[in-house]
């Protein structure tokens, strides 16, 4: 990276006229408010939450130290275990599902279809709609009395059953279907752009070799857009961990506590039940989940950069 050449050694800077020295300060001055804001937002807020998670806070934050009590009580709680299990189940289906649908749609649109812009808009629009609206509308559709089930029965198929949100074992899939509906357009957009950036000569060469369409995609095109898969996964996983609005509007965590998610649980503990200490502990566990994803990803990025550095 040649930008490093732009760094002015401090000693040389001191010898220059003040105007120029001020000039070298400008970038840092401009950046300073953002650095300060991000520092407070990321570190101070997190450290504060960490401290609260080790305190005996109940109704309001207090600062009596109790060690890991809150964490022990958290992991002893059945509902928290359900929430954490849900998160993994949900993230897995969500990421694989929306990538599969997104890829399928991207490949279909990539076949020189007519009205490409219209198709793209149709698949992308749910992304613009808030989780609150999405959750509300889909809860109407899932409602067995008013929604899809009633509609199909009205058509004459009288024992048709579609009541995902009514059963504790299937409600989580209702959330998954909804989130895939909401976000596969995003995956599609990224994949489509990736497909468009594949070197056409590469594709031609594969075709001349007599490779089938399927084979061309599998062997030539998809491997070249592999980084996009990873990018989509990382973006979606952070959405998955933060999932709150959607579930709040769609199932409110029910039936029973079957669709409780960590973010909902944190909110419940901190605000409804007045257990700020344990709520903070749960929030720290959410951060831990983020770290489980983020740390390997950043290591991979660093490794890739190094490798590129060596090769280039």
């Amino acid at each position, binding site marked *: 990276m040649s*930008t*490093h050449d*732009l*760094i002015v050694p401090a000693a040389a800077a001191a010898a220059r006229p003040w105007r120029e020295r001020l000039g070298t300060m*400008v970038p*840092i001055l*401009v*950046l300073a408010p*953002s*650095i300060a804001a*991000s*520092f*407070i*937002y*990321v*570190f101070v*807020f*997190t450290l*504060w939450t960490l401290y609260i998670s080790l305190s005996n806070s109940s109704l309001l*934050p207090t600062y009596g130290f109790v060690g890991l009590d809150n964490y022990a009580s958290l992991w002893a709680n059945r509902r928290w275990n359900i929430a954490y299990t849900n998160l993994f189940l949900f993230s897995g289906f969500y990421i694989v599902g929306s990538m599969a649908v997104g890829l*399928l*749609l991207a490949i*279909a649109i*990539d*076949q*020189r*279809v007519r009205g490409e*812009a219209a198709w793209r808009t*149709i*698949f*992308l*629009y749910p*992304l613009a*709609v*808030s*989780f*609150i*609206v999405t959750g*509300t*509308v*889909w809860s*109407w*559709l899932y409602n067995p009395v*008013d929604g*899809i089930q009633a*509609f199909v029965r009205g058509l004459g198929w009288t024992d048709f059953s579609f009541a995902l949100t009514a059963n504790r074992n299937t409600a989580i899939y209702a959330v998954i279907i909804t989130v895939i*509906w909401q976000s596969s*357009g995003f995956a599609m*957009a990224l994949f489509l752009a990736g*497909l468009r*950036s594949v070197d*056409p000569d590469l594709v031609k060469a594969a*075709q001349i070799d007599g490779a089938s369409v399927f084979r061309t995609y599998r062997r030539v095109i998809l491997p070249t857009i592999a980084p996009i898969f990873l*990018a989509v996964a990382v973006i979606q996983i952070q959405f998955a961990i933060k999932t709150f609005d959607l579930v709040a*509007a769609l199932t409110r965590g029910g039936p029973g506590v079957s669709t409780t998610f960590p*973010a909902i649980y*944190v909110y419940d503990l*901190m605000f409804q039940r007045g257990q700020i200490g344990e709520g903070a502990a749960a929030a720290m566990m959410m951060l831990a989940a*983020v770290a489980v994803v*983020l740390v390997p990803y950043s290591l991979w990025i660093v490794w890739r950069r190094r490798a590129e550095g060596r090769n280039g």
Partner: protein
Amino acid sequence: MAEIAPDASFDPARPNPTGFDPEAAAATRRHFWSRFLVYAVLTLFAIVYLVPLLVVIFNSLREQSEIARNGLISVPRSFRFDAWAQAWGSYCVSGTCEGMKRNFFNSLAMTIPATIISTILGAMNGYILSKWRFRGSELIFNLMLLGVFMPGQISLMPWAFLLGKLGLTNSTYGLVLIHVVQGISFTTLFCRNFYVSIPDDLIKAARIDGAGFWRIFRKIILPLSPPILIVTVIWQFTGIWNEYLFGVVFTSGQQQPITAALVALTAGGTTARAYDVMSAAVLIGALPPLLIYLFGGKYFVRGLTQGAIK
């Protein structure tokens, strides 16, 4: 730079131009079926994607009594705009009967400044972190990046404390501040990744010509920026407009943004649910980001691949 690569798709089977032969006929047949398959897949998914929207649009135009009789999913047999008028100006939520219009304008008053400020900051940060690197700038970039992953629930109480100290509780300014700070991570990430791909030689040449920090930004960076600025604006606008948690906790009554009002409206009460008014309200709440996607979607997809994923 803004041009994407020419259409890289390929024809799976090209009919033989040299006249009829059995193989070519088979190829044409295959071609037909593969085209059919492509459109079938697209149509099927398009239906699934559009049904919820159509259901809501239809219900906003149907009479409540007809919805109650025929269920939620049905073609309108009645047609009127009353529900829209009610949802906009006269439906009773949270003790006032003024519909959603005030909340709608609250949301605008929050979203527009927060989007503009966070985008400007993101552009400046991205410019510095890609073109004016200094010792530790990578570290700072990574620090800002962490903000992307912060769950909102963690920051709720610290924000309450901070807003109280700043005297910004229950005001749109407080929400603007929150969304700017939380948005910096995203906007900086987008812009930085985009600016990295601008050749450094361009900047170097300008510096040799005596151009400074601001001049380079104005004359070189800014003219190249529209694709990424569009992405950033769309991302921020929809994100902030759709945000719920902070809106409901840090404002009240007349100050609440539209998402909070929507939840109040759809939470239902002791009377039967007015699906017609709720549908209209949902559409009013979703309209601005929808319009933005409708008109900016093309640029969004294009810019995203140049900036966000690297």
